[in-house]
């Protein structure tokens, strides 16, 4: 079921493991100062990063993503690891920035937006147009936003970041069994939210 979407004029692939076997070379060249190779890494990871952040912090996902990349760039020359480690590092960095932002917002709370689910809010001026283009993905993100945050985070790290259970457990500081339980609970909750129609039907997209 992966890679079946067609968006715009390009052939669609999923958000996981775009770099693949070339990762070591791409990373090395990016660490050596190749802007183009860094762009390959960025294009590979940024959509997943944004989706993860939009589920957990819809109001300021873009800001946190930008901050995450700044941190990643500063430490990029020292990074050692394969693509899985790269993704784990990237999402660990993002999660730390997310926690920092949450603390900051706790100290300086914004005006409450009651009665409106955060996942249903437009996130940019052209959100409506984006929603028309990407109803399924937007709907999926909105649905995940309605899950309890620990469950949503586990699912996003498993599905979007492409991390396995052990990596997610390490990232969250929990046991693999705990991660599995949270993931399964989240999936069951998602199933109950979806009903029999599913997100594709909700978005008017068929597979």
């Amino acid at each position, binding site marked *: *079921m*992966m*890679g*079946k*979407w067609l968006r715009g004029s390009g052939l*669609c*692939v*999923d*958000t*996981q493991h775009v770099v693949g076997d070339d990762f070591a070379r791409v990373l090395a060249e990016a660490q050596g100062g190749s*802007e183009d190779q*860094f*762009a390959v890494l*960025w*294009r590979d990871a*940024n*959509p997943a990063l*944004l*989706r993860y952040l939009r589920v957990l912090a819809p109001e300021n996902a*873009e*800001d946190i*993503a*930008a*901050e995450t*990349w*700044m941190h990643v*760039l*500063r430490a990029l020359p020292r990074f050692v690891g394969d693509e899985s480690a790269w993704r784990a590092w990237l999402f660990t960095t993002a999660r730390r920035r997310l926690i920092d932002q949450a603390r900051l917002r706790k100290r300086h709370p914004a005006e409450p937006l009651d009665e409106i689910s955060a996942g249903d809010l437009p*996130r*940019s001026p*052209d959100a409506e147009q*984006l929603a028309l*283009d*990407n109803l*399924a*993905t937007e*709907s*999926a993100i909105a649905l*995940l936003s309605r899950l309890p945050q620990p469950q949503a985070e586990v*699912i996003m790290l498993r*599905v*979007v970041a492409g991390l396995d259970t052990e990596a997610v457990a390490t990232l969250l500081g929990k*046991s693999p*069994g*705990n991660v*599995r*339980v949270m993931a*399964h609970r989240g*999936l*069951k909750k*998602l*199933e109950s939210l*979806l009903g*029999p*129609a*599913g*997100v*594709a*039907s909700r978005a008017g997209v068929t*597979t």
Partner: protein
Amino acid sequence: MSDSLPPGEGPDPYEGQDLEGLLSGKDDSFPAGLRPVAQTLDALRAAPMRAELGGEAAARANFRKIMLGDGGGTWASDDSGGERTLILPVEASGVAPRPLQGRHRRRRPARRGNWQAKALAGAAAAAVVVIGVSALTGTFSGSGNQSAQSGTSPSATSATSPSTVPSSKGVEGSATQEPSRSSSPTASEQSGDGTVKPSELCREYYAPEEPLSLHDKRARFQQLSNLAGGPGHVYPYCLQFLQPWDAGSADQWDQGPHGTGWPPGRNGNGNQGKDESGSQGQNQQ
């Protein structure tokens, strides 16, 4: 959170393997009931949207700035119209480091200079202290011309250490010979009240065989003051009658709050006791 699913949710209709297959996206042999969930997860994995790649230019700029040291401010957020955060430009690599290095060059010698200045200041302070002590000692030796106010000294301020004050009892019986100076004893004896010799008065005051009461000490000091020509002249006056171990050295004496020459309050056994006003010495230890 426990590792098992909570009770009361009924039997789990799906195997763990089914759910793992959903999460990994590598196994599509899940039950039909999970198809909506699978579609949702596929939507999450779907190819990037335009907005998600709109910030590439900013990311490249940040890359140039951080990795290549490129200057200039960049917008951290993307160009999609969301909130944008201006990252202030770092100092240009060609210009900024020079003043910075220059500042460091200037600072390091300054630190050494400060260290030397502090050492010099410390040495100068030590020299001042030594000179001051020497001057005070010399002044005290010739302090007969300075007056001290009788009965107004609240406390002894001498730097005398008890261990340096010789005990009069320790030398009792050996200090019986009066100084053989011929200058003033006769005159002093004649100018006194005729009942007590000045030498005895001095000895009773400075080296009494038995501790004197405060009243007696004051009376004797008054007499000695009259004989010597003032309170500040008592010690030089008595010095000619006393053995060194009776009177102690001049620097053992109380400088007093009103001038030098005020005798220390000493009791008969040579220990530091109460001064003329009866207050306990504060810095005798």
